[in-house]
């Protein structure tokens, strides 16, 4: 049971898992921002009627699993993914892959994850980690958001793999099947595909709840929250927005900084000034998201709370929407060589 898996800490769980797994099969050039950008991870969506933990359902990234599959697809890496009905089958399958020498990515729920501090354990099922070995009853676990590797007993692992609720993992495991090396040319092409795909998800997807339109929609909604929900509940909604934006796994500023870092790395491959300019704009967008978070904190701390304060908060989001729209339009106009 040996594999040359190496744990590297990352900002976000899925990109971290993707990076570590791909490095494990021989793609040494893979970095977290590259995985995020090639996987077209940047997103925004607000689903008005859906509630998560009694708050609004807001996402700053695409659905779990998509970054991994998209990145591997663009690079031509052959992957294996499976979910299970039975807990026994799930464990047998995992043991088998480990015995074959694979490091295996698993989707897990956070609520029963023992090494997380209690305050962070919600019923949130889109967390990812890598199982890279087994010693007696203990699975060796690399959780990309942790500094070091940890371990889980087979019971603990089974429990988090079969967490229930929204987006339940159903024991999902995934891994790249073969050793693989990619040329710079391939990464170059994958970057192009990733950016194009992200431009599409943010600018052209129809409907008003996702992409740039979604940010604008949320901004306008926030202005109405105070009257509609009452000050206290509106504050809780804003707290949820801030948590989705900043909490462990976003790299800060709702993934905007990772994306800016990705565009800088993309420039190393493509040598195009427009990428650098877009990168700066996304840094601005990230800063704006954080400024908005400070404003929101003022409201849910109870320091401020007039309608004018909610208007300011909503206007921040409208401003962000305008900034990001400009950035993506710049990206969409790039003439790729």
């Amino acid at each position, binding site marked *: 049971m040996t594999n040359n898996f190496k744990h590297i800490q990352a*900002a976000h769980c899925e990109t971290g898992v993707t990076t570590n797994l791909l490095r494990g099969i021989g793609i040494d050039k893979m970095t977290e921002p590259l995985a995020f950008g090639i996987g077209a991870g940047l997103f925004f969506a607000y689903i008005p009627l859906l509630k998560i933990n009694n708050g609004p359902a807001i996402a700053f990234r695409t659905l779990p699993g998509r970054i991994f599959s998209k990145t591997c697809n663009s690079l031509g890496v052959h992957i294996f993914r499976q979910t299970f009905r039975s807990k026994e089958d799930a464990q047998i399958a995992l043991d088998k892959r480990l015995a074959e020498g694979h490091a295996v990515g698993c989707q897990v729920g956070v609520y029963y994850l023992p090494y997380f501090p209690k305050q*962070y354990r919600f*019923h949130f099922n889109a967390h990812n980690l890598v199982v890279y070995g087994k010693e007696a009853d203990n699975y060796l676990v690399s959780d990309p958001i942790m500094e070091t590797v940890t371990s889980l007993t087979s019971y603990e692992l089974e429990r988090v793999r079969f967490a*229930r609720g929204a987006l339940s993992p159903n024991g999902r495991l995934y891994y790249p099947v073969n050793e693989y090396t990619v040329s710079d040319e391939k990464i170059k092409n994958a970057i192009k595909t990733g950016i194009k795909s992200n431009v599409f998800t943010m600018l052209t997807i129809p409907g008003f709840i996702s992409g740039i339109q979604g940010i604008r929609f949320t901004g306008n909604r926030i202005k109405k929250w105070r009257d509609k929900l009452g000050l206290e509940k509106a504050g809780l909604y804003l707290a949820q927005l801030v948590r989705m934006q*900043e*909490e462990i796994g976003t790299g800060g500023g709702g993934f905007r900084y990772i994306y800016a870092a990705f565009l800088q790395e993309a420039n190393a491959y493509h040598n195009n000034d427009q990428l650098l300019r877009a990168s700066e704009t996304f840094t601005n967008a990230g800063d704006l998201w954080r400024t908005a978070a400070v404003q929101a904190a003022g409201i849910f701390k109870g320091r401020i709370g007039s309608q004018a304060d909610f208007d300011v908060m909503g206007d921040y989001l409208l401003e962000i929407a305008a900034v990001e729209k400009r950035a993506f339009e710049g990206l969409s106009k790039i003439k790729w060589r």
Partner: protein
Amino acid sequence: MKKEEVPQDLSALGKVTTEVCYATDGSGKYTTEQSKGWDIKITALDAAWQDIEKRIATAREKVTNNEASPLLFFMEKGLMDIDILAGYTGFWKWQIKRHLKPGGFKKLSDKKLKIYADVFEIKPDELKNMRP
């Protein structure tokens, strides 16, 4: 965000592990910087937990006044909602809604009580004879 501006306010997570943040160095190039946490995030999390504490207190009161069954208290305590509880127990949502009422709860068989108790990691007795 510049590297020096990455906040370092110790959070509950910061005691276990620092987080990776992406920030720019002096020449505007992106690099990573470890962060112990951010004040804004800590208060956001605190706000969420205050709300949870409140929900648990309300549930406790409802159980005392016989407006709801003990199931509601333990459900809130486990941060669950009916969807999640249905997932873990295998019951239908309409069944759980019925069990959340005192009348429906009284009719529960020992077998079903045990299923609930196992999910909440308590003894069936504690669930049945909850003294709020």
